[in-house]
């Protein structure tokens, strides 16, 4: 795979330098059949340094997971070698089965079939709360 020219696929751009492996794991890119390139410490005018991930296939990416990890990432959709869509992310209002509640008194600790659901309650401080027990999860 020529990492500069993807014919059809996805490029995740503006990843904070050093975060690309987290994203690789969280999006389960290791389970893909297609080629995936992680490019680290690319010089960037806006960010100083950034990481980029190129995926050589048109897969479905969980934008909520990605937005939660880093809302600054840009998702470029490539078709026939050109960018056909640029998606800008935001912190998702709701997270379903992305993070887990760690409160041992929470109902989710004893009812494993329940979805782990969090809602964004404070956009400025980036605080999510478990919808069941209201436990706080500050975004790292």
């Amino acid at each position, binding site marked *: 795979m020529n990492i500069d020219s993807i014919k059809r696929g996805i490029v995740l751009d503006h990843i904070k330098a050093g975060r690309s492996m987290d994203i690789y794991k969280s999006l389960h890119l290791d389970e893909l059949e297609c080629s995936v390139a992680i490019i680290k410490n690319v010089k960037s005018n806006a960010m100083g340094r950034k990481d980029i991930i190129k995926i050589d296939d048109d897969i479905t990416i969980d934008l909520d997971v990605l937005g939660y990890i880093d809302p600054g990432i840009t998702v470029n959709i490539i078709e026939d070698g050109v960018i056909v869509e640029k998606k800008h992310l935001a912190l998702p209002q709701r997270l379903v089965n992305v993070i887990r509640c760690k409160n041992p*008194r929470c*109902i989710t*600790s004893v009812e494993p079939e329940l979805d782990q659901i969090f809602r964004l309650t404070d956009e400025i401080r980036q605080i999510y709360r478990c919808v*069941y*027990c*209201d436990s*706080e999860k500050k975004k790292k």
Partner: protein
Amino acid sequence: MRHLIDITDFSVQEIEAILDLGDKMIADPAAYGDCLKGKILATLFFEPSTRTRLSFESAMLSLGGSVLGFSSADSSSAAKGESLTDTIRTVGCYADIIAMRHPKEGAPMAGSFKSTVPIINAGDGGHNHPTQTLTDLMTIRREKGRLNNMVVGLCGDLKFGRTVHSLIGAMSRYEGIEFVLISPPELKVPAYITQGLKDRGIPFTEVETMEEAMPRLDVLYMTRVQRERFFNEADYIRLKDTYILDPDKLRTAKESLSIMHPLPRVNEISVKVDDDPRAVYFKQVRNGRFVRMALIKTLLEA
């Protein structure tokens, strides 16, 4: 279909409507004596709380309805390993409305997702107890004739006291409310609550003795200070008298003060206060029955 899981599930207007209905029921209980004839309330108490269960059952019976249920987890199917969701769906086939108490936080919320009938949270661990808050709001409104423009003192264990947290949340929605938080440093209101008050510009002060706040208070909401919340016995002994209300501490209080307590009390209000006209905690219990009647009727007709 509506549930009551957290007091803020209801808007200020919806709460007003329930309190209005509760007032009408107090004024003329006979008029509502069989308005829920043929309806069944299930009380699912996965942890025992006789007091709360009786208040729900009394409320349903007062409306002409019937009740069924269980009063501890070991007599329920949960003891056989059934999921909460399955229990709720099953009971929904037998009853028209469910009042549920559970030791785990968020259990009523989890139950409500797949429920075919309205769920009322009758207490989920140390988390929420919205019908207690409705009771408190009903009592304040009946005593004061309003829910806005007053100084509300909350005293005792403000760290773990869920009734206090819910009441602060509910009263914060009215104009002109100021809170005075009276507790030992070890049992102060959690930071996320005071942060929330700051964010919304709601005035509050934190003090360590009742005496310094007493003259300004319109409502004094007492809670229990439990021995097990303290690291050592010496601290408990030192502090416990500070948080016991007696006639002496009331000397500087307003004539119009309302003294409240979610009950049961241990010793944080001296029995000598019981005959003071400002003591309204037994009226509060009675209000609890009527506000639950109003809630059940409202949810069944929603």
